[in-house]
C-alpha cells in the first residue's frame, strides 16, 4: 500500500503521521512538498497532516488549501482517491472545499490540548471499519480552531447521510453537533480534529487511534 504525506511550511505532525502510516502499511510514505505540482503515481492514500501551515495566516488552512500540491489533491480526491486530513489537515480540506463546513476559533477561545473522549458515530467508512459504531475511544486533541460549523441545511444533510464519523462525548470546542470528524458525500475524504497518529503504538500509552489506520489498510489492501 503506497501512501503520501503532504508537508507545508508550518506542518508539525507530518512525521508523526508518516510513522503511523509506515507502521500500519509496512511501507514508508512519500513526503510531498507543498510546492510540488504532482503527486507520486499509484498512491492508495494521501495524508494531510496537523500543524500550523503558513502560520495559520488569513484563516487556518486557507493558504495551504490554495498551494500547488493541493490542486493535485483536489483532482485525485475527485477521482475517489482516499484522503485523510488530521487537525490542520481537516482545516485545509474544508478550506479546499473537499469537505463541507468550516472550522472556526474554539468557542471558549482557548487552545485545547488534552485527551478527548469520542464515540464512533459510523463504522461503515473505509476510515472506521475496524471500530464498532458506538465504540467509545479516547484520542488526543490539540487545536485552537476546531469549532466545526455549517449551516442548518448542511448539518441536516451530513447527519442524514451518516457522514459524521467521530463525535465528542462532551463539548471540546463548541462544534455543531459535537462533530469531531466527518467524511465527504462519497466517503473517500475524512477530516478529523483529534490526532489518531498520537495514539497508535504502545509507547503512546493509548492505541485507540490505531484502528483508524488498520481500517484503511483493510479497505485499501482488498480494493
Amino acid at each position: 500500500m503506497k501512501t503520501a504525506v503532504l508537508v507545508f511550511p508550518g506542518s508539525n505532525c507530518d512525521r508523526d503521521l508518516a510513522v503511523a502510516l509506515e507502521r500500519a502499511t509496512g511501507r514508508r510514505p512519500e513526503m510531498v512538498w507543498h510546492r510540488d505540482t504532482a503527486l507520486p503515481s499509484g498512491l492508495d492514500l494521501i495524508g494531510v497532516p496537523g500543524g500550523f501551515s503558513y502560520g495559520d495566516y488569513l484563516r487556518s488552512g486557507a493558504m495551504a488549501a490554495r498551494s500547488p500540491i493541493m490542486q493535485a489533491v483536489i483532482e485525485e480526491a475527485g477521482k475517489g482517491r482516499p484522503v485523510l486530513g488530521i487537525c490542520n489537515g481537516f482545516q485545509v480540506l474544508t478550506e479546499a472545499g473537499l469537505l463541507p463546513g468550516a472550522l472556526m476559533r474554539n468557542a471558549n477561545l482557548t487552545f485545547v490540548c488534552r485527551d478527548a473522549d469520542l464515540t464512533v458515530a459510523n463504522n461503515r467508512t473505509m476510515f472506521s471499519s475496524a471500530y464498532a459504531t458506538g465504540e467509545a475511544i479516547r484520542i488526543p486533541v490539540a487545536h485552537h480552531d476546531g469549532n466545526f460549523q455549517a449551516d442548518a441545511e448542511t448539518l441536516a444533510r451530513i447527519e442524514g447521510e451518516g457522514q459524521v464519523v467521530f463525535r465528542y462525548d462532551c463539548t471540546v470546542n463548541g462544534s455543531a453537533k459535537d462533530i469531531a470528524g466527518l467524511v465527504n458525500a462519497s466517503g473517500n475524504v475524512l477530516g478529523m480534529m483529534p490526532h489518531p497518529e498520537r495514539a497508535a503504538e504502545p509507547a503512546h500509552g493509548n492505541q485507540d487511534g490505531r484502528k483508524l489506520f488498520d481500517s484503511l489498510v483493510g479497505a485499501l489492501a482488498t480494493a
Partner: protein
Amino acid sequence: MKARVLVTLKPGVLDPQGKAIHHALEGLGFAGVNDVRAGKLIELDVDDGTDDAAIEDMCRKLLANTVIENFKIERLG
C-alpha cells in the same frame, strides 16, 4: 489604486471573539453595547483599472471563506 475588502462573519454565525470583546468592554464599564462582531480589513494596492469582478474573484477564491463569511469591497480611488 487602493481597495479595501471588509470580511465579516455571516449573520447568525457565532463569533466567539466578538463575544469576548463585548465582555471585555462591559468589564471596563462601557454600558449600552448591545453586540460586537469582529471581522477583518484587507487593503489591496491593485493596478488602476482593475475591475470589481477581479477583486470579487479574489474574495471568493481566497480572501473570504464564503461558507461562514461575507465580504464587501470599497474602492479608495
